[in-house]
């Protein structure tokens, strides 16, 4: 057993009380003196050439302080992938989706700003819209981006082993096509930003971003402003799920409008804008071909994928990379072939969304696994155990697996759900289904970096400060990171003063995404804490006249081991350091992950440079009403290998939240498009799972100790939703014998499948 005093304890979220009592200040709550309200004019056409934009009437409206278009910007394109940047803050020649930004206004109040938008005259020449990636790939299709040869933004092929020989050696081959749909992140809080550029041209932004340090960098690039003039301050943040990683035109517009007026400007997205003009989960088409033997061994697997990019790149290129990595790394398969095309369409564009291409790949692969089990008349769990990944292995696509508890997660859900017994005594219309997954447990250096920094200090009163660039968007990193520091420094987490996210006061951190904060920022904090601990003990040794090796920290005292009465309090150490030694005790930590392998291919993500991989298995029990097709979730079990769990309470919360996001994606949530227009941009018609729809969820923490994680921890946030949908759809098949390969499995779709059976 571990002998930790803080790590592994169920400690409630550090900011829980502040949030539930309504005291937390979010970006939308910020009001500054003289503040103006900004609004963005968005395209109502899916694909059109901009002939002219006339803002003169809008400028003359009383209360309007500024109107800006592309002419007010440096025309620098942005994307998360700098070499594939394709998005202007305000489009100059063409609009490419309904929601595309054309202009922005700042006015004394919101109503005036909205009125001003209606006075901007935009002359458009409508062009043929492309809404289906397969159509967009055809020869002769109209081009969405004029500077490119085709509508394919990125294409790659990756081969490992010998796919043809693999199929030739297989006893059986199954082929099937899987499609997935657009999901909205549906964070409780919409995008919101307040920018204050003042008269001295210093830019201060209060913005709900998952990645403040990169945002500062991107604002600097896209507006050609020196980084030393920019400060990004994230207030409390109401969720992100990937939607708040990107630079967004709301940020750029806020800064430009504030610069132009010399007054602070606030822009808050309406929920409709959040649905129609911020990122979403990429829809996908994945054709799979699997070769396997009588005993269940997967010999060869091939995927041909089309990722529907929407109008711009955002994260598309790396989402397709992850689609490949996670497809190829799950299970020990020697012969793999992956070919993918990322295709532009005239729709809202995809971005990072919890799981980052993995849910799409896992839905296809894990449904295929059940088809194989069915063909072989083999237990689906046995089939997965047979092909399971193991610790200290390198996959065929050269992904280094350090710790791995995949087998244990399979066994855990089997036991918890009473699988074997329930399978034997199957009730009519009831079904069980499982699905496993692999995902990064600590971001990656796919973009070249995976950095997090932390500093710690002790002040004259002995108070300990933790200073981290990591951003808590609701997932609880403020709590887990202080727990890591507290464990090392022998104190309680709430005794640590915490400073986070602000780009002026913290060391750079890549941000909250890629399930990387516990791992990367945790490693940085751990190093900073160890560093500070060493200095505190050295100072204590000096004061006490004892050798360092005899000293230990207990409850903010440095004591002599076995002689607890002989010691010195942090407060004294702080005081002595300040007044007598004239020194501030500090610690610093920095993490950027292991060296990138020489054979890493940034296009296909072959030899993916993730520092650790997390695993999970989900198991769903459903009941299907054959007369309406309605799927009722009865029980849900989610076993996760997230390494050593720093805080089980928060980890279970993540697992439950992820499962619910997966329930929605599997069954009810879908952005519906008609000629590029989203028909359901509200929570009335976009069906999130509500508290009444959610079954009993049983989170199971299968702990491994990762050699490179802080205390052995790995990431969890995104993993929590990746294998939810295939588990449910496999359960539906078990219940009523229909294999649905296109998400979501709405009541109507299930009903129609049953009717056709």
């Amino acid at each position, binding site marked *: 057993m571990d002998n930790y005093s803080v790590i592994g304890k169920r400690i409630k979220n550090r900011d829980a009380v502040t949030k539930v009592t309504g005291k937390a200040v979010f970006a939308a709550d910020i009001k500054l003196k003289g503040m103006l309200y900004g609004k963005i004019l968005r395209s109502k056409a899916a694909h059109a050439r901009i002939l002219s934009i006339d803002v003169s009437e809008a400028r003359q409206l009383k209360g309007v302080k500024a109107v800006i278009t592309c002419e007010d910007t440096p025309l620098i394109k942005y994307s998360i992938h700098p070499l594939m940047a394709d998005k202007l803050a305000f489009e100059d020649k063409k609009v490419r989706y309904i929601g595309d930004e054309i202009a922005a206004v700042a006015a004394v109040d919101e109503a005036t700003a909205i009125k001003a938008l209606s006075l901007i005259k935009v002359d458009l020449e409508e062009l043929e819209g492309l809404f289906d990636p397969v159509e967009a790939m055809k020869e002769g299709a109209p081009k969405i981006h004029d500077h490119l040869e085709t509508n394919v933004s990125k294409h790659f092929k990756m081969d490992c082993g010998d796919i043809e020989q693999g199929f030739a050696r297989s006893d059986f081959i199954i082929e099937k096509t899987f499609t997935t749909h657009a999901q909205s992140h549906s964070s409780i809080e919409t995008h919101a930003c307040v920018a204050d550029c003042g008269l001295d041209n210093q830019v201060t932004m209060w913005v709900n971003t998952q990645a403040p340090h990169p945002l500062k960098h991107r604002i600097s690039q896209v507006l050609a402003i020196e980084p030393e003039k920019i400060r990004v301050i994230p207030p409390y943040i109401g969720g992100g799920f990937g939607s708040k990683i990107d630079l967004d035109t709301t940020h750029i517009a806020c800064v430009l409008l504030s610069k132009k007026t010399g007054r602070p400007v606030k822009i808050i997205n309406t929920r409709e804008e959040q649905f129609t003009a911020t990122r979403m989960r990429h829809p996908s088409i994945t054709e799979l071909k699997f070769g396997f033997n009588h005993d269940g061994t997967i010999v060869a697997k091939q995927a041909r994928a089309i990722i529907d990019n929407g109008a711009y790149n955002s994260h598309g290129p790396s989402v397709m990379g992850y689609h490949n990595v996670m497809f190829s790394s799950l299970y020990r398969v020697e012969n793999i072939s992956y070919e993918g095309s990322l295709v532009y369409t005239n729709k809202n564009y995809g971005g990072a969304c919890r799981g980052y291409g993995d849910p799409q790949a896992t839905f296809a692969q894990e449904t295929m696994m059940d088809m194989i089990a069915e063909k072989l008349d083999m237990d689906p769990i046995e089939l997965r155990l047979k092909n399971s990944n193991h610790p200290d292995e390198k996959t065929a696509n050269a992904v280094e697996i350090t710790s791995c508890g995949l087998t244990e997660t399979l066994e855990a859900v089997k036991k918890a759900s009473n699988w074997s017994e329930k399978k034997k005594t199957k009730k009519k219309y009831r079904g069980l289904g499982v699905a496993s997954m692999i995902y990064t447990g600590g971001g990656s250096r796919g973009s070249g970096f995976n950095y997090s920094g932390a500093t710690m200090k002790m002040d004259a009163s002995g108070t300990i400060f933790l200073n981290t660039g990591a951003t808590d968007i609701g997932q609880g990193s403020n709590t887990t990171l202080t727990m890591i520091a507290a464990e090392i420094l022998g104190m309680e987490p709430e005794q640590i003063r915490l400073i986070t996210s602000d780009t002026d006061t913290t060391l750079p951190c890549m941000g909250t995404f890629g399930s990387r904060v516990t791992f990367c920022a945790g490693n940085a904090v751990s190093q900073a804490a160890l560093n500070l601990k060493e200095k505190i003990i050295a100072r204590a040794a000096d004061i006490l006249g004892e050798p360092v090796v005899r000293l230990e920290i207990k409850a903010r005292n440095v004591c002599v081991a076995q002689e607890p009465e002989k010691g010195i309090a942090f407060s004294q150490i702080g005081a002595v350091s300040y007044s007598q030694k004239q020194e501030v005790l500090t610690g610093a930590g920095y993490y950027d992950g292991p060296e990138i392998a020489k054979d890493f291919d940034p296009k296909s993500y072959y030899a993916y440079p993730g520092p650790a991989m997390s695993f999970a298995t989900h198991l769903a029990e459903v009941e299907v009403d054959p007369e309406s097709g309605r799927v009722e979730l009865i029980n849900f079990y989610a076993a996760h290998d997230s390494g050593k769990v720093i805080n089980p309470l928060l980890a279970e919360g993540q697992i439950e939240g992820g499962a619910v996001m997966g329930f929605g994606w599997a069954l009810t949530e879908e952005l519906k498009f*008609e000629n590029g227009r989203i028909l359901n941009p509200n929570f009335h*018609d976009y*069906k999130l799972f*509500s508290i009444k*729809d959610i079954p009993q969820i049983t989170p199971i923490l299968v702990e491994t100790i990762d050699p490179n994680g802080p205390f052995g921890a790995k990431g969890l946030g995104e993993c929590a939703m990746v294998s939810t949908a295939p588990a449910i759809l496999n359960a539906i098949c078990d219940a009523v014998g229909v294999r649905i390969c296109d998400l979501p499995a*709405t*009541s*109507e779709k299930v009903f129609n499948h049953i009717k056709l059976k």
Partner: protein
Amino acid sequence: METFEYIKPKSMDDAMNALNTYENAFLLAGGTDLLVGMKYNSIKPECIVDIKEIPRMNTFEFNDGWRFGALVTVRDIEVSDRLKQTMPFLNQTAKALGSIQIRNRATIGGNLSNASPCSNFGAMFLAMDAMLKIISKDGERQIALQDFFCGPNQTVLKKGEILTEIRVPEDAGKAEGIFLKHSAGKSNDLGLVNIAITLHREPGTNLCKKITIAMGAVAPTPIRAKKAEAVLNNNILTPDLIIRAAKKASNEATPISDFRASADYRRSLVATMVAKGINTLIKAS
């Protein structure tokens, strides 16, 4: 949202005056439909006439049949013990509407006047042969709910008229009844199909003396499935007959296909739900 006048009259006469003064005045009761329309700019009132303080509009009582004031909230109906004992299907109808927060605000008069094709009370009161009392400055008139709806969000209410009362005949209170809703989610969700049924049986038998079946969300307004009712009236409710009636009801429905569901699926649901509704009533006794 644009600016508008707001008036809160204390009497029906003052309300009438206000309604007739403004070209484009809207009544505010619970506001659960009005404010949504205003937020999405589909309703742009010049004036809002808040009728919540007009007396005697928010009560219901039995007096030679049931009388419900138009301002009775959906939540009032949901939690009423008196109704639970006499017409539990009304509590059920209320409970299936929106969330508790919405039910606390929404009124039954508003639910009818908004004339949504999927109005819960539109279907249930239709099945109960409800009569409506409508007041204007020229006096009052009574019409059957059957003649009230004209199309989606359209009623026969003329400018200056207010729906003030819903009356249901005495025998509706002696019927068995059920309200069924099929929707994607379990809470706060509109029905893809709503079915309301009342049934009078010969005591102790399955002989149907009178059945009424109303359907919501499957036509421009809530409608009665008269042909299905005719199949069942004065007959023994056998499984075969119930299936035949359910199919009839399904054919009487004229649903649209939209992103929420296809017409075919809605029709299938009608048959399933009508049969399920009748079977539930039979099995309950």
